[in-house]
């Protein structure tokens, strides 16, 4: 699907710090975390410092006092992306947020209390914060975004579904601009999941899968002549159930894009890295020098911004494939257009 989505705002919260500079140049620090099922076994994780003043300020907001960490990641990244947008513009702004596991920390805490202390101990303060769209509601209410609002679920490719949704809303005239976000929070239960999936086998740091957390967002509108960063094509929905099927799905997906486009690599630490290497072989490739870990939809959002940072207006479009780790493959084409002055 050809699109003409201009990026007019960006925001990021990463384990390397808060803001775009941290996203592009920061270095995250590993924390060793034990598995829930095997407390004797630890694995490195990139976690966000909730005491960062940029995140602490949101924890004092009355509506957000009981919110889960993912809400703080989201609201801070959203505020960065919305910088300069006044109240009347915010009132015409839609919000679509992609999640994979969503409010995992509170969901785990809520269910663990049921299992270990019985159903009577279930916390009415926790339960509403386990719902996928609670963080979306918090962001919309706190930043007064009065346009449409969706929480979307899925693997990494939910980020692409969110971009597609933004395009639809702009085409339909539902909003003047849309804030598209991806966010995840880490919980040690996910380490057990990755362990069971066989994703924690690689010990060598250069290729190791490191679970992570955070958020990022882009504020988009229909592109005008003054806009330079443009998402010009979105393709998704190529499903798979095995690695050979993923290779075939990726081939079908990438065939939808210009063969000359360079390709941004992002699967170097994931189970689909062979698929990426095989399919990107005939293209010029680029990658980020810094690894921020794996945070599903948040990683997809981070990588979109990092891919843009590597583009210049002299080159053609760059292809950014999103290797959904459990369902499907999708990709977007990014262009940096020359700006013309009158």
């Amino acid at each position, binding site marked *: 699907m050809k699109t003409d989505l201009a990026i007019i705002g960006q925001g990021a919260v990463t384990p390397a710090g808060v803001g775009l500079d941290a996203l592009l140049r920061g270095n995250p620090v590993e924390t060793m975390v034990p598995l829930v099922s095997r407390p004797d076994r630890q694995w490195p994780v990139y976690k966000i410092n909730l005491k960062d003043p940029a995140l602490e300020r949101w924890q004092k907001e009355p*509506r957000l006092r009981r919110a889960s960490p993912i809400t703080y990641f989201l609201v801070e990244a959203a505020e960065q992306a919305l910088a300069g947008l006044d109240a009347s513009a915010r009132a015409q702004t839609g919000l679509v947020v992609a999640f994979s*596991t969503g409010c995992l920390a509170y969901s785990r805490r809520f269910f663990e209390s049921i299992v270990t202390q019985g159903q*009577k101990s279930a916390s009415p303060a926790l339960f509403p*914060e386990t719902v996928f769209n609670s963080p979306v509601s918090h962001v919309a209410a706190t930043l007064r975004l009065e346009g449409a609002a969706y929480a979307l679920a899925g693997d990494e490719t939910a980020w692409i579904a969110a971009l597609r949704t933004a395009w639809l809303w702009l085409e339909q005239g539902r909003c003047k601009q849309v804030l598209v976000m991806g966010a995840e929070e880490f919980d040690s239960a996910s380490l*057990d999941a990755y362990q*069971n*999936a066989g994703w924690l086998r690689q010990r060598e740091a250069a290729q190791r899968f490191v679970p992570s957390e955070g958020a990022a967002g882009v504020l988009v509108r229909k592109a005008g002549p003054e806009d330079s960063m443009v998402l010009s094509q979105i393709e998704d929905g190529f499903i798979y159930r095995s690695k050979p099927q993923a290779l075939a799905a990726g081939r079908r997906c990438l065939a939808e894009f210009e063969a000359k486009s360079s390709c941004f690599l992002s699967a170097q630490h994931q189970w689909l890295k062979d698929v990426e290497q095989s399919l990107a072989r005939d293209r010029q490739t680029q990658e980020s020098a810094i690894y921020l870990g794996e945070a599903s939809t948040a990683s997809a959002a981070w990588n979109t911004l990092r891919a843009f940072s590597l583009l210049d207006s002299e080159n053609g479009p760059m292809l950014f494939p999103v290797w959904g780790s*459990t369902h499907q493959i999708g990709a977007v084409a990014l262009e940096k257009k020359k700006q013309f002055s009158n």
Partner: protein
Amino acid sequence: MKREVVITGMGAVTPLGENVSDTWKALIAGKDAEAPLELFDTKGCRCHRAATATLPALPGLRAKELQRLSRASRLAIPAVREALAMAGLLDSAGRSLVPVLPFSVSTTAGGMGFGEAFLRDILVHKRSRLLGPVARYLPEQQVLDVQVALGFEGPSLIVANACASGANAIGHAAEMVSAGMADCVLTGGFEALTELVFVGFDCLQATTTERCRPFDLKRSGLLLGEGAAFFVVETPENAKRRGVQPICRLSGYGHRTDFFHLTQPQPQGQVLVDVMREAAKSAGVSSSEIGYVNAHGTATPVNDGAEAQSYRTFFENSLDQTRISSTKAAIGHTLGAAGAVEALFAIQALITGELPPQLNLQSPIPEIASVLVKENEAPRTLRHAMSVNLGFGGSNAALIFSRNEN
């Protein structure tokens, strides 16, 4: 581009039946599916009853394949199959005739039952055979199960806007078709009862220990349920190419977020009024033309009062020309599937003229007492019907369905 959108296929699995026809007959007959909940232990809960669906057989799947499916997938697959068959999109082997079919779907908990099993095991330090449950609990796995079982792929969107998700997923599908982004979209929602969610509503004291009484002064909470409903939405031209007659038009959609509170609507229901006005405007109808509303009507003290107030404001002087009922007393609150299952009931009312009665009424709340559907009401001729949903986080959505007069 704004194109007309029609519905050509519907399918459902609900606590009242394994398909649309059985569900509708039971609903119109005034039956309800409330029963003791046996899917998991509830001994620490206040409430012990729910509306549970019987899982339909899935012919063609081997026992091992069935075992891999979450309860949510077991609900979704037969409902999708029924919808695709009605729309003439299945071949003789029960596979999709179109290899690429965009999918807009809703849920709140996905295959959470598998997630619960995984968490239980790791908390007791069990180390083996855990991959199956954890790999299949996330919502995209139920979407993948449906796609693989029916043989199609294509862009999918999983809306998780709490209890308004189903209406959002359907409205989104309609907008995709209307905007020319797709000619045909499969849409709907599914939800399976799970312990985490059941205990969650129980600890909020949102579930009732008595009868579920939507829009009654003595209402004391909701009845949880489960189910799935799916639709094929497309352009009339696309349907005509296959020789398929549209069931109705999907003419209006509105949605917005209420900022008042995470779990409570604004007391005057103003956001819902705005949402219904948006849906009516996009359908090109006035409130007086809407003959039936399938209300959200959870039977919680806070929701129903605000919702009733918003109907008074929206319909103004024409309130007495419409009929309203909440079907949650019959099938329970199906959460992420509610917007889809209840849209089905609004469509069935539109095309049959039969109206689902408001069950368990003793003392109807005065704001809308005169328009709540009574048992055994005579059928009416409807031109437009509306389905309304609200959810945690302030999600509000309304869909309007109109008689296909072409």
